[in-house]
């Protein structure tokens, strides 16, 4: 059944400039985080000061849009107060919702700010109805961001089994592993999404060129080796090339991006409430172009779902921002099944 309410477009904002670009391009909401380990994209030079958030929220209010505040790493032992301070900040700065992953922090947010709208982060790894319903019963979560491991059929089933709003990823770099439960980065470098809000952190990356050949290392571990002239990408650990039984290849995953453009009417029909764009580490130009493209697609899907078709220029624009210029519908259609 087609719902009358359009799906919300949720855009990444790694900076105030990206937030403005997202709203100008038609995002209904942005998600952002503080400049510290409390959010899962804790990259140098990115994220928000409290003053930036105050301006961002003011702009959102003026435009009738929303600011979602991500606090989606896990409070480290002995340092719970840092994460609680982030929840306090989210409340005090007027966030429309807080995106949380950790049950202990959800307890705090619920008890301290009963009116604060809580979303369960993708890092919370709720992959089936019992997990989502437990979080609703315990913490009153209003929305869940689904991990990128579920098929369309599974999303459909979930949407029918829970009253919690469902948000899914629609475009961006693809985490191959269930997020919030991947220690590969800390295994190689000591820093992980869970404990520091980083994956394959830049401080651990070293490039070495010899005879035209380029090696990418993470804490000294050879993650990828490029032939002369071969374009190099950021050495994200799970997308490197490794040897398995003597064969060097992308043993875990190729650098590809998720692109669910073609699935928008089906997602809407299932009752999915919001489409999320990945990429708080990306530039305002990326945010502007991807948001504008998805805005056009979502509007088309909403106005005339039966006549919806992906326009070639949408695909072309998104392809420019895809990793390795390759896109996939990821787990939604399980190409590896």
């Amino acid at each position: 059944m087609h719902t009358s309410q359009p799906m919300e477009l949720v855009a990444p904002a790694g900076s105030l400039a990206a937030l403005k670009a997202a709203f100008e391009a038609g995002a209904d909401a942005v998600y952002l985080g503080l400049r510290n380990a409390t959010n899962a994209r804790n990259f140098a030079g990115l994220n928000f000061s409290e003053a930036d958030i105050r301006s961002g929220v003011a702009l959102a209010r003026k435009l009738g849009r929303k600011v979602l505040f991500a606090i989606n790493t896990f409070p480290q032992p002995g340092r719970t107060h840092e994460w609680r301070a982030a929840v306090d900040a989210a409340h005090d700065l007027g966030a429309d919702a807080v995106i949380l992953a950790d049950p202990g922090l959800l307890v705090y947010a619920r008890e301290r700010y009963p009116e604060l709208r809580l979303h369960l982060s993708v890092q919370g790894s709720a992959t089936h109805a019992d997990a989502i319903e437990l979080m609703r019963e315990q913490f009153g979560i209003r929305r869940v961001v689904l991990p990128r491991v579920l098929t369309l059929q599974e999303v459909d089933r979930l949407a029918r089994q829970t009253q919690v709003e469902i948000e899914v990823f629609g475009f961006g770099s693809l985490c191959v592993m269930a997020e919030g439960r991947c220690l590969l980065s800390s295994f190689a470098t000591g820093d992980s999404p869970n404990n520091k809000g980083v994956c394959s952190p830049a401080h651990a990356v070293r490039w070495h060129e010899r005879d035209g050949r380029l090696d990418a290392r993470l804490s000294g571990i050879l993650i990828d080796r490029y032939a002369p002239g071969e374009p190099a990408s950021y050495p994200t650990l799970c997308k490197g090339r490794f040897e398995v039984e003597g064969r060097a290849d992308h043993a875990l995953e190729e650098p590809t991006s998720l692109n669910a453009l073609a699935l928008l009417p089906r997602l809407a029909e299932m009752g999915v409430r919001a489409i999320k764009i990945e990429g708080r580490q990306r530039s305002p130009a990326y945010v502007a172009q991807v948001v504008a493209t998805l805005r056009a697609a979502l509007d088309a899907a909403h106005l005339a779902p039966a006549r919806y078709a992906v326009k070639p220029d949408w695909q072309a624009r998104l392809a420019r921002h895809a990793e390795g210029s390759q896109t996939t519908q990821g787990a939604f259609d399980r190409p590896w099944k």
Partner: protein
Amino acid sequence: MEMTACRIALGPLLYYWPRQAVLDFYAAAARSAADIVYLGETVCSRRHELRPADWLALAGDLRAAGKTVLLSSPTLVESVAEIGQIRRLAAQADYPVEVGEVGAIRALGGRPFVAGPHLNAYHGATLAWLAGQGAIRFVAPLELDRAGLAALLAEKPAGLEAEAMVWGRMPLAFSARCFTARHFHLRKDECGFRCIDYPDGLDLRTQEAGEFLAINGIQTQSAQCLDLLAQAAELAALGVAVWRVSPQSQCTLEAVAALDRVRRGEPAGTVSPPPGIGRCNGYWHGRAGIAWQEAA
């Protein structure tokens, strides 16, 4: 040195071994010094060398041999089959369940459980919440260092036991994709059960042949065997109640025996990992998990 009261647990078998190999392993485990045995398939619901009834029969044998038996629930739940597996575990009342992800907590409806190592219980408030849901024990996150574990144990609610992994390849990540099937250019649903040929997982090396990771179906592990045997007494002194050994195809019960020696106040001695597998203990020392540092 005073005898420590720490118990020894065999974590769930993470690999797909031939049926007879599984039965032989647990027959030997029944004669070992392990106090606690976690049973069941937690990685891939397609693996079926042992059916649920077989696991229950094994549980009965191990209990008869004096072991405390728990049944472990799957770690990444997507399919109807996996949801069914959780429901079956929740429906039986003979054995407590080790919970692999939060959904199983609801299915258990307040019954006592052990919170598995992938629940991300990094601080006291989350431990308190788990205890409120019925957790009697939790397995500490693998990436904590010594100071982090000490801080976590200081925040632990009274009555909630702590368990820490001390030996075996570390499970590091979970995916919807099956990397073993991918290596063989097979579809996940028609994988030919190739995992069965790799009793300790499939080695993933760097392009300069450096030991790095191991592929085990949808799971990615450390290539190196975690070895905290030399730190076992210290773990116990910090307040860890249960040492976990994760089964490998070889040397596992030697690690159990080493821990038994520690418990009796003797040195652990050195236990070699299975041939071709190195050791790591970096997390304990506040370094990258892959690092190895000899005990001072």
